[in-house]
Every structure is written in C-alpha cells, then in structure tokens.
C-alpha cells in the first residue's frame, strides 16, 4: 500500500477491482464504512462475480476475467477526453511534460512497441532504446527537456500553478497546449494517442461492460476525483496481479492515479491488499529471488565485485534516494560477515554473496519446472502448500514425485506433505523421501509482523507451541548450526567462508525465555542446547541497526554494546563497515528510549520495541489462563498510541511504518506546487513560508541533508534531483512515471489476452503478452513435457468454452490448512463449490446443489453447483468482427484432500464422503506467468463443465 488501512477513511471514491475486501479483509472494511458514512464516499466494485464487496457497492459492474487493462485504459482515455486531469499535479509531479525520443512507436496491427526482439522473452523481449525521454545532451543524459502542457507561472522551466484556467481550482477548465510545437513529442501526447483506441465501445467489446455502465463508472471515478481536494482509492489484490500482464495492470491504474492526482493524497494511492498478515514483512526481508533485504537487487554474475555493484547506484548514474545504497549494502555485509569485513574488507564480504544467473528466473513456476526436469533434487517448503495453492497442481505434484527429498515445514498435515498419496497415485511408485517439521503458529513464537500498511509490530509469544512444534527461528538455528559444522569439517566445500564466516553469535534463551549465560551454555549437553533458542530481540537489534562495537569481550559484552549503540534512523548507516543493519528500511526501529518533555519518545515513531510486555514467570503463568500479561501492551508509547493529531488516522505513535515511520508514501504530492495542501482537511505536509509543518514524515527532501536548511516547496516539487517521488532512481528528477522503461512489455500498459482466452484479442495483433514466457519444459515434448497434459487450450476452444476463475471466501484462508482444520469454520463452508450463472445452469441442465465437474486441459475438479444470479453471461467481441456470449465459472481454491474438511471429494447420501478423487481448483490452472515477476495466471483460463450423474 502506498497509503494504509486506517487511511481508507479519507477516500472520496473507492475503486475495488481484482479484490474482494469485504470477503478477504473483513476487519479493514470498517474504514471503508467510515468513509462512506462520514464523507459520503462512493464505492465502485468491478468484478467477474457479484461478490460480498459488490453487495455493498454504489456502482457494480461485471467484467470478463483477464481484461482489466482494457478497462483501465478506457478510464485513462475517458479522463483525457473529458479533461478530467489534475493538471497542476501532472505538469509538476509527473513525467507527462517530458519529450519522448524519436523512434518510439506502438503498432496496433502487431501489438508490439518499438524495439521488439523476435523470439526473446522477459527482460530480453525488447530493446528499450526508444523507450526514453529527450535531454539537452543526449549522450550524457543531462538536462531533461520539458514542455508546458498547460500555461503555468514559471514559463521558463514550465513549472508552477496553472495560469490559464477559466475556473481557478477546477483543472478541467485548463486549456491544453495541443498546438504547442513540442506537444506531439510529449509523454502526455503519446499517452493520449496510445489510449485513444480504448473507447467506451472498445471497453464493451473486450470486457463485456456495457457502454452506459462504463461511462457511469468513469464519471464517478474520474469525474469524482480529478479535483485537487478529492481522493480516489484503488483497492486491488490477486485479481489484478495474478496474470501474464499483472504488473502492467497495476501500472495502468497507477497512470490513472497520477493523471487524477490521487497518489500521495490521504485517502488515495495504489493499495495492494495483502492476503497474509506478514507477507509485506516477507518481501521486505527478501523471501524472493531477485532482491536481498531492503529491496536491493540480488547480485548477478554480472556484478562481479563490490565496486561494480555499487557503481550502478553512484550519483553519476542515478538520483533520488538510492544513491545511498552502498551504505545499506555495507551495513548488511557487516551484519552477516563481520569478521570477514574486519579482516579482509567489504569487497571480500561481497564476494561471499551468492551471485545468481541474471538471465535465469528463479521464481515459483521455473523452480517447479526445474524439479520436473530433474535439475533440482531437493526442496524445503516453509509454510507453503503448492499441491493446493500452486498453479497446475497436477504438474507441480508430478514435479515433487521426481525429487530425492522434500522437507515441509508447516503447522498442519498439508496436502503437499501428502503429495505421495494424493488421489490418483500409488504411494509405492513415489520414491521421494518426505520430512515434515511441525512449526509454531504466529501466537506461539515471538517476532515482528509487517502488514499491508507497512506497519510493523513486535509480538511476544502468547502460548507454547503444541507437541514437537518449534518456532521458525529455532528451526533456522538448528539448520544453520548443523550446516556450519559440516562446512567447518569440509575444507573443500564451495564458498565455504560464506557459511563458516556467517555471524551466529547470538544470545541464547531457554524454553522460558530466560537468558542463558556463556558459562551455562558451555556446560550444556547437546540435548540441552537443542532446547535453547536464539534471543529474537538480538535479531530486532540487527533490524534497527547499530554502530559496530569495538574492543568487545565476548558475546554478552558485544550485545550489550550493540544495544547501547542502536541507530535512530537509517540515515546514520555508513558505507565503511562501521555500522551493521540487516535491513535498512527498518533502520532505527530499535532506537533509544530517551523521552521529550511531553512524554513522547525522542525518536518519535521509532521505538516500537520497548519491552513493556514483561513475560511473567512460568510459576505465575501456570496460575494465569492467559500465560503472559500485557502481551498486546508492548506498543512503544502507551500514553500516545491513540494520538492522531489531524484526525486522518495517521496514528504516528502506533507501531512503526517503514520507512522512517512514514505513513503515506509520496506525501509531497498532497500539497500543491507552493506547498499548500490541496485539501485543508487532508494536510500531511505544508509550507508555512519558512519551513515545512508536518503531520506525516516528509517523503521528499524537506531539509538539506548537509546544512539542515529548509528546502522550499518549489524545489521539492520538481527541482533537479528533488522530485516528489523520492524512491525513483532517475538522476534528473524523481517524477511519477506515466512513461517508463522499467517494465518488460512496454512503456505504456497494453491489453493482451490471457494465455487461455475464448476470443482473439480485439485491441491489437498480439494475442498474448509478447514478453511472457509461454513455453516451459513441461509443455515442450522435446524436453520431456506433455502439452496435452500440462499445456493450454487454443483460443476460442470448443472443448473448453467457459472462462474459469478462482477466488477465496472469508471462512477459509489460502490453501486451507489453517481453516479447514477448524470445525466451526468447516461447518460454515464445508466443501468445494462451483459458482455458475442461472443462464449457464439452464443450458447445461444443472440444478442448485448438483455435483458438477469442471475440466480444463490440465485436470478435473468436482464441486457442488451454486447456481446464482450473482454471475452473468457477458457479450463481448469475438475478435473477428462478430460478438460472442461467454460464461464465467467460479471456483474457490481453498480445498484439498487432507485435514478435517478436505472439501473436494465425491459425496454420497447426506453429504457423506464416499470417495476422494479430484481435490483442488488449482489442478485446472496453467503454468504461465507475468513477464516481469512470473506470478502465475490463476484468474483466467478455459474450462468445460458437466453435471456428474
């Protein structure tokens, strides 16, 4: 989220697209209700189904799964046609007035942008030389050229407030300088041209949204939020991202949000509704292949040494905040390999970092393809259930069959742990050794959790884990301790020092959380040692960062000194190895407890780890049902946690939002060119003539780093290297990108059909995303693949005439292992069901409650028919000039074949389970993903449907 959950209350119009927050984020829904009740906010829901969210909507429309870019492109076109553009914002804060180089083009006949390289995919699909803007000096890329899209105060640099509007304050009345000699070269003109094809009629043809309905939505959203003081809010989730064009969908809406001036505003922004309480934390800590902690790129074989890696972020090459990257990397290296840094220097420590093959994709789909190919021999999955949640689950299980060993770490006995006895296979045929490690749940271990709002909290263990279950930290510790011993013993082990030199000298705590002294540790037997755990508070110190202590006498002294030297902000991190921090974006989170006169902490918002939550002794714990007193009272500043000065729900003293406790990202954009907030009741930052007055932590250069002098608003609006989008790494200015070369499939998002589609692409000549990988080994007969078993249905297939889509329900969670084992939730939503429209049911002779089978090219799954008015057939273009009626078949993907409520088996009388055959909706989904991230295309594929007699 660029904004945060509580900020939803400040929205004027909500667009819920590719999400179902009422269903999947029920606790957050209260903020939407608050905005509707107090601000009269409007709610628009666009979804293939009339969902629980739709039931609360002011405006609802169905949409064909997989066509969101056509819809968003339609909105962009509509906003431009009606001049619903927040012009002051667009002229000053975005790259709209910049000029595109000659040679850039898009050809609707081929569906490709300039620079396409036949046969190449992902990052290599395009030569991006023409996806550039013009400079005074093109060779050195300095002195970017601008033009005045509208007349503004400063007509030398083309910045400032509009001067020619007929109704001041209403951007719609700004005349656009379309006659300007440079206009046709501007990013805005290219944008206008690109989306001119996305007419309401085209939206109807592609998405199945009737023209009138589309205009109603466009008026409500674009017309309702283009005014400077109004905020439009996009709430999206996996319905947008899980696609071959997932990234471009989000970009398309980001472009719209910039045009309407909604980004950086309270109540606005681009808001990814995370589906898991700590998924934000897991990406922050780089549980991904392409980054290392804090969103630094994972080094590839091209970045051979530290200098090469650092040179990419040198001030000569880039601008914005990322010029500080060498400091973050140095602190990370110091944290991981302090001895190596001290003895051999940072460059040697960098050498220990594994370098990935830059051309290779290590995400979920390619990893399973590699297992299927026998390249990968062993797998550890941690809190993941791919036999239910993975795309093309039949293929992914077949890939598991080929492993030598598989370790599953989970709370429950998952389907993936039991893949060797899934319906349809003989256990004796599968040779994979499977190990299951029981893990502790979130309340059974201590640690931090970071939610969609980027809000991090530390939670203390509330109850002991059951049986042999252990915390994740314990499991990592055991694994690492053993690995270290093995590497120590083998002097020829590859990259040995990376393991042997890895810092592991943490404080140990016993089962009751009591510290184990070094003397006690030394006396312990190996069995006793196994019962101890790393003190999670040490990890928190590493997160917050510290001045690396010198003259240390042993581990206890080290941690004592580290704690006394914790940093107050990541700005204190150094590039010389004198500081350590395992994740710079959390830098300062473990700060001092010094207080101001008014009782607030000096490092306001930083200190979230003050240990006010005292673990009671085990003796007391036995007496007390709740075991641990005050487990939720650890927030750093009890007197101020509810303090919310401007009443915007910022609550700066509640927990900690990275970076630097900033609640709303890009908040410079909440004020105009001269630093006056667009809306008085939505003031985040404002310029009082001398300095900035802030309700939120400024997300721009508010003060000069060297002198501390206030930077005037005109400079931070669009001055050279001082733009409002601070995290942009462009050297010239940090502007909102309407036009970019950062994505793999084009500088503007373009609609491409899902890989399995009932129609030809009506918008351009490319059926699918030209940059996506459409052929993996599993579908390549030359590589042992089987396209008939794992491949795709052809366009407009008669064998698979319906569009399948998958989703979640509020009663169950993800791959189901946590909720399908709870009887009350299982009672409420007991088994696999398939939602179909009354029209399709009539065609197929299916009645409510009948057992039906849904089949795709890749598998079959059975479920109970939920025949409903909440799905409707859509009339769309067939891509050949005619029209076509398409039906959508909806399936929940929670169910599997293990647990109290397997969900997917065949039933006999009174719902009694008689056989276990098909089990999961993802047995139907294809192995294909986005051209940037490879997130699988779960939400649109082709199926057939029949009644099971």
């Amino acid at each position, binding site marked *: 989220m660029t904004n945060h959950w509580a900020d939803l209350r400040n929205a004027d119009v909500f667009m819920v697209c590719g999400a179902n927050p*009422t*269903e999947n984020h*029920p*606790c957050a*829904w*209260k903020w939407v*209700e608050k905005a509707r009740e107090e601000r009269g906010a409007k709610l628009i829901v666009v979804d293939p189904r*009339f969902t*629980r*969210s*739709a*039931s*609360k909507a002011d405006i*609802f*429309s*169905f949409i064909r799964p997989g066509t969101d870019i056509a819809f968003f492109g339609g909105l962009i076109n509509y906003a431009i046609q009606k001049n619903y553009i927040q012009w002051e914002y667009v002229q000053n804060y975005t790259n709209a007035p910049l000029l595109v180089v000659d040679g850039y083009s898009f050809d609707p006949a081929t569906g490709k942008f300039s620079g396409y390289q036949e046969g190449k995919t992902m990052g290599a699909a395009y030569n991006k030389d023409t996806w550039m803007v013009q400079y005074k000096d093109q060779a050195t890329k300095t002195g970017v050229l601008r033009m005045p899209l509208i007349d503004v105060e400063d007509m030398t640099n083309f910045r400032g407030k509009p001067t020619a509007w007929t109704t001041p304050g209403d951007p719609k009345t700004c005349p656009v300088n379309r006659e300007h000699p440079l206009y046709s070269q501007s990013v805005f003109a290219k944008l206008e041209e690109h989306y001119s094809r996305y007419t309401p009629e085209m939206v109807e043809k592609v998405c199945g949204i009737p023209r009138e*309905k589309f205009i109603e939505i466009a008026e409500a959203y674009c017309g309702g939020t283009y005014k400077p003081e109004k905020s439009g809010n996009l709430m999206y989730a996996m319905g947008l991202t899980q696609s071959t064009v997932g990234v471009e969908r989000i970009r398309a809406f980001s472009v719209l949000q910039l045009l309407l001036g909604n980004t950086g505003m309270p109540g606005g922004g681009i808001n990814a509704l995370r589906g898991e309480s700590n998924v934000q934390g897991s990406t922050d800590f780089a549980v991904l292949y392409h980054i290392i902690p804090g969103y630094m790129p994972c080094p590839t074989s091209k970045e051979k040494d530290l200098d090469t890696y650092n040179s990419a972020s040198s001030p000569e090459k880039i601008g914005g905040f990322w010029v500080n990257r060498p400091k973050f990397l140095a602190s990370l290296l110091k944290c991981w390999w302090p001895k190596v840094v001290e003895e051999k220097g940072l460059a040697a420590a960098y050498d220990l970092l594994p370098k990935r093959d830059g051309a290779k994709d290590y995400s979920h789909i390619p990893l399973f393809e590699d297992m299927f190919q026998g390249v990968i021999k062993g797998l550890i999955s941690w809190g993941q259930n791919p036999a239910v949640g993975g795309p093309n689950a039949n293929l992914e299980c077949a890939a598991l069959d080929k492993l030598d060993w598989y370790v599953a770490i989970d709370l429950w006995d998952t389907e993936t742990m039991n893949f060797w006895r899934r319906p349809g296979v003989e256990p004796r045929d599968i040779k994979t050794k499977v190990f299951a490690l029981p893990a502790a749940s979130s309340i059974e271990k201590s640690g931090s959790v970071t939610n969609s709002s980027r809000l991090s909290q530390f939670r203390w263990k509330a109850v002991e884990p059951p049986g042999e279950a252990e915390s994740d930290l314990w499991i990592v510790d055991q694994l690492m301790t053993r690995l270290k011993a093995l590497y120590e013993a083998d002097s020829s082990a590859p990259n040995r020092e990376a393991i042997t030199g890895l810092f592991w000298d943490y404080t140990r705590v016993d089962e009751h959380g009591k510290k184990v002294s070094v003397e006690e540790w030394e006396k312990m037997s190996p069995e006793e040692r196994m019962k101890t755990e790393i003190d999670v508070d040490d990890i928190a110190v590493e997160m917050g960062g510290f001045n690396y202590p010198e003259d240390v006498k042993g581990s206890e002294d080290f941690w004592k000194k580290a704690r006394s030297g914790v940093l107050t902000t990541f700005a204190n991190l150094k590039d010389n190895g004198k500081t350590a921090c395992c994740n710079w974006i959390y830098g300062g989170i473990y700060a001092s407890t010094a207080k101001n006169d008014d009782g607030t902490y000096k490092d306001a918002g930083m200190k979230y780890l003050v240990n006010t939550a005292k673990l009671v002794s085990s003796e007391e714990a036995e007496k007390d*049902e*709740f075991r641990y007193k005050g487990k*939720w009272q650890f927030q750093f500043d009890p007197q101020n946690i509810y303090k919310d000065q401007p009443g915007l729900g910022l609550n700066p003293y509640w927990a900690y939002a990275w970076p630097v406790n900033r609640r709303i990202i890009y908040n410079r954009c909440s004020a105009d060119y001269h630093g006056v907030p667009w809306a008085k009741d939505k003031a985040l930052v404002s310029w009082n003539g001398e300095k900035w007055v802030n309700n939120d932590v400024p997300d721009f250069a508010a003060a000069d780093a060297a002198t501390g002098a206030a930077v005037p608003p005109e400079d931070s609006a669009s001055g050279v290297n001082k733009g409002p989008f601070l995290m942009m790494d462009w050297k010239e200015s940090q502007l909102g990108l309407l036009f970019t070369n950062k994505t793999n499939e084009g500088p503007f998002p373009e609609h491409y059909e899902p890989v399995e589609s009932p129609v030809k692409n009506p918008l351009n000549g490319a059926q699918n995303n030209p940059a996506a990988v459409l052929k993996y080994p599993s579908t390549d007969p030359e590589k042992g693949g089987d396209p008939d078993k794992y491949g795709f249905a052809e366009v407009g297939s008669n064998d698979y005439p319906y569009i399948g889509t998958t989703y979640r*329900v*509020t*009663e169950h969670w993800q791959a189901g292992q946590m909720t399908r084992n709870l*009887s*009350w*939730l*299982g*009672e*409420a*939503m*007991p*088994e*696999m*069901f398939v939602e179909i429209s*009354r029209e399709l049911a009539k065609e197929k002779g299916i*009645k*409510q*409650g*009948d057992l039906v089978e849904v089949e795709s090219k890749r598998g079959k799954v059975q479920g*109970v*028919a*939920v*025949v*409903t*008015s*909440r799905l*409707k057939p859509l009339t769309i273009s067939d891509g050949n000039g005619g029209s076509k009626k398409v039906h959508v078949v909806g399936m929940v993907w929670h169910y599997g074949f293990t647990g109290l409520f397997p969900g997917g088996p065949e*039933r006999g009388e*009174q*719902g009694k389970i008689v056989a276990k055959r098909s089990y999961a909706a993802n047995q139907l989904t294809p192995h294909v993903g986005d051209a940037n991230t490879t997130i699988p295309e779960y939400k649109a594929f082709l199926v057939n449907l029949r009644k099971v007699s």
Partner: protein
Amino acid sequence: MTKAILFDASKCTGCRACQIACKSWNERTYTHTWCDGTYENPLELTSQCWMRILFNEPEEVGSWDELWWHFTKYQCMHCTEATCVKVCPSGATAKHKVSEEDKEAYVVMTDPDKCIGCNYCVATCPFSACRYDAKEKGIFRCRLCFDRITQSPEAFQQGGLHKPLSDFEKLLEDPANEAWLRNKPACVSTCTSGALSFGDRDEMVRKAEERVVKLGGKARIYGRDELGGLHYIYVLEDEPETYGLPADPTVPAGVTLWEALIKPGAPWGGIGLVGLAAAAGLSYVIARRNQGLEGKEG
C-alpha cells in the same frame, strides 16, 4: 428500560464472525454440514447453532443494477408477545429481567430443569427459532448473551448454561477484557463492520430510525412494532421478504385460544370449558408440532 441488539443490514458483510462467536462463547459443537448450493451453513438453526446468517439473492433480475445479496442475522427475536412463552405448559420458557432496573422482563429463555420436551414452542414460533435437543433435554436458542450483559452472578447461572461462573469472573479479572466482554453479547463484540450494536432498546430504535432516514429509498425499520416489539431491531434496505424475514409475524390465532383456554393454569382453563374453539386451539398446536417434527425427520 430494556436492551436490544441492532442489526444494520446495510453494513453487514456476511462474514459470519457473529455466527462463529456465538458458537464459541456458548460452547456449541460442530454439526455435520454439506453445501446445498448456497453460501448458507448450517442450513437450519439447531441446538448447536443459535444464530446463522441467511444469504438471500433474487431469482431473476432484469439488469445488473437490480442485483442484490442480502445478509440476515437470524435467531430468536426475543418478541415482547412471545409465542413460546404463551404456549409453554410447564412455565419453563419465560421472559427474564437483566437487571433490577428493568421495568419488564424481555430476555426469553427456557429453564432446562422445567422443560418437559413438549415442543409446542418449536411448533409455533413465528420465526421458527426454537429448537429442542433430546440429548441435552432442553430448548436452545439465542439468549441475548444473558450471561454477558447482566451484572449479577446469579443471572449468569440462571441462563441455564452449564458453564462455571468462575470462567466469567476470571475473564473479568483482566481489565483489558472488561470493555469488550461486559455488557455486550458475543456477536456484537465480534462484529467488525459495525453492523451490530447493543444498548437500550429505545436508543437502538432511535439509531435505526436515523439510519433509515440516511439510507433513504426503500430502507425501513423492522422489529420496532412487530409482535409488540422485538429485541432485535433491524435496519433493512428493502422488503423484509428479501431478507428472509416474515413481513408480518403474528402470534397464531390458535395459540391465543390455547393460552386462554386450555394451557394449564390458563384463566379459563379452571372452568373446564372444552369448547369447539378450545379444541381448535389444541389441534392447532399439536398439528404444528407434528408437522415440525416430520419436517425435521424428513
């Protein structure tokens, strides 16, 4: 002064947290269910399920704009003119006061020790909200979380739930629990969307009326006047039928006769008058009961 729960259907998201919270607080066990082609489950109120959310949608719609999906919290309504109290021959089912300040009794509960299992209340409830459990030998339904909203320990036990009083007291020892626990039924405490609130009935009616004005259109209040006033007040956005609620719930005429003439201890019963009308009342109650039982078994 009586209390009531306000259910604002315009804010309900159908998440069913209330349904689960009801089970959790009242220690109701799992019952076997299966999907019958709707989101609803369990499909019936039972002794183990005292409240459930109904999912209502239209059969046919002319345009997308006419679509709706209405969620209804469904349970015992604690009617002022409570049919179940009228028909109960043993006096087990009665209305109770929550506190001494209450002018009238209004929380309908059945004392398991006095219940003879005649099922008359099950048969005649206008909302079909009473359930008899042969195993636990008693009538089970929403008790308005009598044990939570009351301040007196006696009342806690009077609720007829076999839960040790110490549980409740132990929870209250922690001041952090006070706010959410005391004075609020479990369903209201757990509601995240703000659809449920609890308080003085007059206040709830006022709040509902205000909300109805704000919503406009076909919005209406339900439960204010029905059956002398329910202790569940509903804010609906459309006709009650679209929420699965009876448009005009009434005490069946037969029940009135039965109460007046035949029921043991009835004002006219002592005279021994067994007239045609009384016979009609008796046959009504018994026929409904048999119907109900057959329905259950079928």
